[in-house]
């Protein structure tokens, strides 16, 4: 078990986000964290990467209880993980090559020639060796995410975390990112956590999946199993139906009464 989240409660400003969430991520597999917008998917990633601490419950990463770790121990642990942000989060004052080289320069004393080879190898893996001299502002959204992926894998982490990797991509870029996630997982044996609400894409690459809803895990299992679930809420999310337990309409007073109220007054 690479990540073990047990009975986690977390609230922001008195508003509960999680009320007893359990998530287990197994080594070497792609685990999808799904759920409608606003269910705390990104919050779960922040808990796993120790950006925030759980109010109650336990988060263990690589066997270590995050609550018991000091700041420097958390930094040591983070060297074993990589994360891909929704917008890439590339450093805008460095070019593509230097962005990928950044973690290597900060954490190792490797000679320049070796850094050069290492960075070009990773850029080749994401198909962007030719873009090494470009600045982040010159990249498309899909390219920025691929550079961020190269940067995330440059120190060969044990675990890779993807935050909404499919948002806003054209079909070609989407296909490329999906293939890269699958390939990185298989070729490097990296444990992957993918947070997304793109059910169709996740179904083709994920080994395990969790569906978050209402501060809890509504369903867990392989994507195919979730799709065949008896629960109306799970089925609605997996099939993308407009109406169901999550209503299309935001709660409102009676439609006709509200429309004609102005005439009467």
């Amino acid at each position: 078990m690479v990540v073990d989240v047990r009975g986690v409660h977390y609230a922001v400003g008195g508003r509960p986000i999680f009320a007893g969430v359990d998530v287990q991520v197994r080594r070497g597999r792609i685990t999808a964290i799904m759920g409608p917008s606003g269910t705390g998917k990104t919050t779960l990633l922040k808990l796993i990467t120790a950006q925030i601490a759980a109010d109650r419950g336990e988060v263990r990463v690589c066997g270590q209880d995050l609550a018991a770790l000091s700041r420097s121990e958390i930094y040591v642990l983070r060297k074993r993980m990589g994360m891909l942000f929704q917008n890439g989060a590339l450093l805008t004052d460095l070019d593509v090559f230097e962005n990928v080289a950044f973690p290597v320069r900060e954490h190792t004393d490797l000679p320049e020639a070796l850094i050069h080879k290492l960075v070009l190898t990773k850029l080749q893996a994401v198909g962007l060796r030719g873009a090494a001299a470009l600045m982040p502002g010159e990249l498309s959204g899909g390219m920025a995410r691929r550079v961020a992926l190269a940067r995330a894998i440059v120190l060969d982490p044990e675990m890779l975390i993807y935050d909404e990797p499919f948002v806003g991509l054209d079909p070609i870029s989407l296909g490329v990112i999906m293939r890269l996630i699958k390939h990185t997982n298989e070729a490097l044996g990296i444990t992957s956590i993918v947070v997304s609400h793109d059910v169709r894409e996740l179904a083709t690459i994920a080994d395990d999946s969790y569906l978050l809803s209402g501060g809890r895990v509504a369903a867990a299992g392989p994507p195919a199993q979730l799709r065949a679930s008896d629960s109306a809420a799970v089925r609605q999310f997996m099939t993308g139906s407009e109406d169901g337990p999550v209503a299309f309409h935001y709660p409102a007073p009676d439609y006709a009464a509200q429309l004609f109220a102005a005439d009467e007054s």
Partner: protein
Amino acid sequence: MSNGGGNGFILEGVRRLGAVALFLVRLLGECVPALGRPRLLVPQIYNAGARSLIIIMLSGLFVGMVLGLQGYDLLQRFGSVDALGTAVALGLLKELAPVVTALLFAGRAGTALTSEIGLMRATDQLTAMEIMAVDPLRYVAAPRFLGGVLAMPLLTAIFSVVGLYGAQLIGVQLLGVDKGAFWSQMQGSVGLRNVTEGVVKSVVFGIACSLIAVHEGYNAAPTAEGVALATTRTVVASSVITLLLDYVLTAAFL
């Protein structure tokens, strides 16, 4: 009710002051390693210092010219225009150069620092560094803070020199004050203590303005509005703190 509001205001002020103090302690801890990384530090000294040169030199020239004109107008009433050099030098070295440089620094370099760091926060660059186990306080904040602290005394010195030249231009070249009297009176009455006062002020203002700029950017809300608010706060807080500290330091040197 108003009493409760007043208490809340004071409490919030104390909380903010405490947060800035803690931030300064952490920042100072990261400054030693930052000094050993010239690749990160030198561009920041260039950004805060060299890029502020034109505005500092132009302002210094005009302030010096105004001092020369006003000083001449005042001194000639008492028939002591020869003291113009002394008056201008003391005014510039002790007060105007450090204060005006700090105010200009807050407006040019301070806002640039705040908005740059704030945008890095808004675009997840700082979070990405933390996930890569690189402390953004060490990599981003400390070199920028140090760059500002080192640039301020240098900019103040340049402001003073250009200001003196401006005063000389008006007083000696245009209004006919004796050149020998202008410089020799200055040399005779401006002591090391006066220069020290200016240097101490510029160092203190450099620490205060750079700290405010970096702190506001680092803690900006990660939105366009948040960065805009933080940038405004940098200018307002730096200006007020500079003038307040100026009074305290002036009183201390008397």
